[in-house]
């Protein structure tokens, strides 16, 4: 079932565009695209941006994973939730916040980074650091502290113990997280366009230009193939990191976290300062904009206005009503995504050999141009498929959001599922347990934490989802991100101020969802 889902919504459209774009042309024409003006630069820029964005996310994310998951301290859960918020904020809002920081008179204006690659990298790290923190942190928290203690007892330095014991154990999670971030960064679009002022060009923006300005399907198809190569490389990286190290955790998930000691405190503090600089500075810029009113003063007017419908048709309902719409659709999307995630992850980990490809294919949509797939869908899905009628209106919104959330949710669940010792399941089965009973008594007990985490992430992603939603949501029932985009596309201090206030509301709502997920996860772990 998930295979059919991916085939219809990803593989078929992609193949169609490639076929149509490349029909009747030879490799000569393809090479001509790759050396046409701007394209070699775009290739280099893509690799550089993705590389730096990933490196930055790992450099900050790994220490953050340790400080937020391995050692325990008061208030930790709130910080975990805050770190997850940037990931789901709309690009237009984040870009405006970073734009304000890097503008000539901005807090970081002295750095002269406006419209530079460095500014884009900062924003990419801002968005993606939570992916590394989350994925690596969950894995780190579950590491058996025994081996590390043993290494230390045998005289290894703290660094050596980390390098030889901890790091190899974290490698699968780290590889998975880095691959996801690499794909996110390589296809990142809004951030590159806005913070680069359309001066910094990548493969993704080049595809957009070719399609949107020139309607050149051939160039788009050639560049789409380049992206596929990139996806394959990222997936290769992830499986290389995982080679031979699929962790078998026995039957019981360990809780390897420990209270922080006096020696940890300076390190935890250092991580917090780094996170604060990365996340709080743009957040403060955002908050300032949300409080600004006509003429340049500050007050809560914009927030009060969220409760009443605007006078003109900028929005048909109040922003608060839009936020409620978002909660309902995102909740349903999280349930759909959760179920699909379990199906895809099961097939990828335990299914027949061919089904293991599903794992990689599920990542594909992250790394292939949205514009290309969009075109493909336009060319393929304009009809009823195999008698399936997807055309009942309202359900399209949560369904679309679930598809968007699926790749990351799968990434979170797969490592946890791999960690379950297959011998346990075999033993249960040989003792006569039905498959359902095996699932209920074994898998569900061990996996409900990670499943809750995937679903929570899916919920948050669905809350912040813009693109898919903007096409399927009825104009009279906007979601919160749609309301924000709508407000920010009109002149006038009140529209813009309300737009930023609504973005703060979205950030707070997302933070609350992540906090709840955290609690759920810890409680579940506690009774295993």
């Amino acid at each position: 079932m998930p295979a059919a889902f991916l085939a219809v919504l990803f593989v078929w459209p992609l193949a169609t565009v490639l076929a149509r774009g490349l029909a009747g042309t030879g490799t000569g024409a393809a090479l001509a695209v790759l050396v046409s003006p701007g394209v070699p630069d775009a290739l280099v820029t893509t690799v550089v941006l993705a590389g730096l964005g990933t490196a930055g996310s790992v450099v900050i994310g790994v220490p953050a994973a340790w400080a937020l998951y391995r050692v325990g301290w008061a208030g930790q859960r709130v910080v975990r939730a805050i770190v997850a918020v940037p990931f789901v904020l709309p690009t237009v809002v984040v870009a405006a916040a970073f734009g304000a920081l890097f503008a000539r008179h901005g807090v970081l204006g002295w750095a002269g980074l406006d419209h530079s690659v460095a500014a884009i990298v900062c924003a990419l790290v801002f968005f993606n650091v939570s992916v590394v923190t989350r994925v690596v942190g969950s894995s780190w928290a579950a590491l058996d502290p025994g081996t590390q203690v043993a290494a230390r007892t045998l005289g290894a330095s703290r660094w050596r113990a980390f390098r030889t014991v901890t790091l190899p154990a974290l490698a699968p999670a780290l590889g998975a997280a880095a691959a996801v971030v690499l794909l996110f960064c390589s296809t990142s679009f809004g951030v590159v366009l806005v913070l680069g002022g359309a001066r910094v060009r990548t493969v993704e923006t080049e595809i957009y230009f070719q399609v949107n300005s020139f309607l050149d399907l051939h160039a788009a198809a050639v560049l789409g193939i380049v992206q596929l190569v990139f996806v394959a490389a990222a997936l290769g990286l992830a499986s290389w990191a995982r080679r031979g190290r699929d962790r078998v955790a026995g039957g019981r998930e360990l809780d390897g976290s420990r209270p922080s000691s006096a020696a940890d405190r300076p390190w935890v503090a250092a991580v917090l300062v780094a996170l604060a600089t990365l996340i709080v500075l743009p957040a403060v810029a955002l908050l300032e904009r949300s409080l600004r009113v006509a003429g340049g003063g500050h007050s809560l007017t914009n927030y009060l206005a969220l409760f009443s419908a605007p006078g003109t048709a900028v929005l048909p309902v109040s922003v608060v009503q839009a936020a409620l719409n978002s909660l309902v659709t995102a909740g349903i999307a999280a349930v759909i995504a959760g179920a699909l995630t379990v199906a895809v992850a099961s097939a990828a980990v335990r299914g027949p050999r061919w089904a293991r490809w599903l794992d990689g294919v599920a990542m594909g949509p992250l790394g292939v141009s949205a514009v290309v797939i969009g075109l493909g869908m336009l060319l393929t899905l304009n009809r009823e498929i195999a008698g399936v009628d997807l055309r009942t209106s309202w359900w399209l919104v949560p369904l679309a959001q679930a598809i968007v959330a699926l790749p990351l949710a799968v990434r979170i669940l797969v490592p946890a599922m791999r960690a379950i010792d297959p011998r346990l399941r075999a033993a249960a089965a040989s003792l006569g347990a039905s498959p359902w009973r095996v699932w209920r008594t074994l898998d569900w007990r061990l996996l409900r934490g990670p499943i809750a985490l995937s679903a929570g992430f899916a919920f948050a992603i669905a809350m912040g989802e813009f693109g898919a939603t903007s096409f399927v949501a009825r104009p009279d029932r906007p979601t919160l991100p749609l309301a924000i985009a709508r407000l920010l596309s009109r002149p006038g201090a009140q529209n813009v101020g309300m737009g930023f206030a609504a973005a703060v509301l979205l950030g707070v709502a997302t933070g609350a969802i992540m906090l709840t997920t955290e609690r759920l996860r810890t409680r579940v772990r506690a009774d295993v």
Partner: protein
Amino acid sequence: MRITRIAIPTAIAMTVLAGCSTAAQSGAEVTVLTHDSFAVPDAVVTQFEKDTGITVTFVAPGDAGSLTNKLILTKDAPLGDVAYGVDNSFASRAIAEGVFADYTSSAPAAKDAAQYAVAGSAALTAVDFSDVCLNYDVGYFTDHDLAVPQSFDDLLKPEYKGLLSVTNPATSSPGLAFLLATIAAKGDAWHDYWAGLAANDVRVTASWSDTYYTDFSAPNYGGDFPLVLSYASSPPSEVIDGEPTTAALLDTCFRQVEYVGVLEGAKHPAAAQKVVDWMLSDDFQASLPENMYVYPVSSSVKVPADWATYAPLSPSPWSVDPATIDANREQWIREWTQVVQP
């Protein structure tokens, strides 16, 4: 937005599916494709539905440019019945590709619309227009004792170095309009003109919102640039305590006209034609300024009072013939990129 990875594909699929949902039933349901800035008050839609028995579904698959591209790519199996939002820089291409079926409305305002018609075609009906113009921050020029620039040539003067923010013609429709205005004004010398602007540190952003509310130094925004690309209709939104804080430079304007047309192969052509008539009705036309910040084509409706005061139109906007735009658009954008962002 963080849209762009998987979101848009799914999105478009869903649009398509959503579009179909109205098609299955008999005659009374019509799907209207629009650009993403479309806004009309509920009351106006409800009244239309009550008067005609037609149910309207609006679908917005992107800005004017991507709307046009999608119409072209799907012309064999159209996404809806009628499309609003193709403007004069894309009109010729859509007509040449045979996206639209001919229809001439007999609504009273059709006479007014006719003066904006695309020459040699009866496929598109003009609904509204607007002037894309540079706007300036009134206070900045008073405070700095600097004369407000008036013409394109003034912008090359050293005293205005680093004061202008515009948008990229490859990613933004006002950006394309502004490029067309300079081409209309400078003819073949436009490359040199833009090289001059680049030498005078013109800032180029990806979209209107980046230029307008991140860069604009007007009191409502507090950015770094007192000269920005926007619309003649923007200043009324920046009136503070009865005082205008911004104004448009009326010698730098390009007139943008937006059209509606019945799609070739529409499932409900008769209902689609009614939608075209409706967009020329007094109710719809009168709602345009407040909701979409554009001027109605109809001469029988009044624009809001503050528009007359703060948002005058350019007396002589620059224009380029749609067929010439269509023949050169891509080449111009490529050349512009070479000159300004090598």
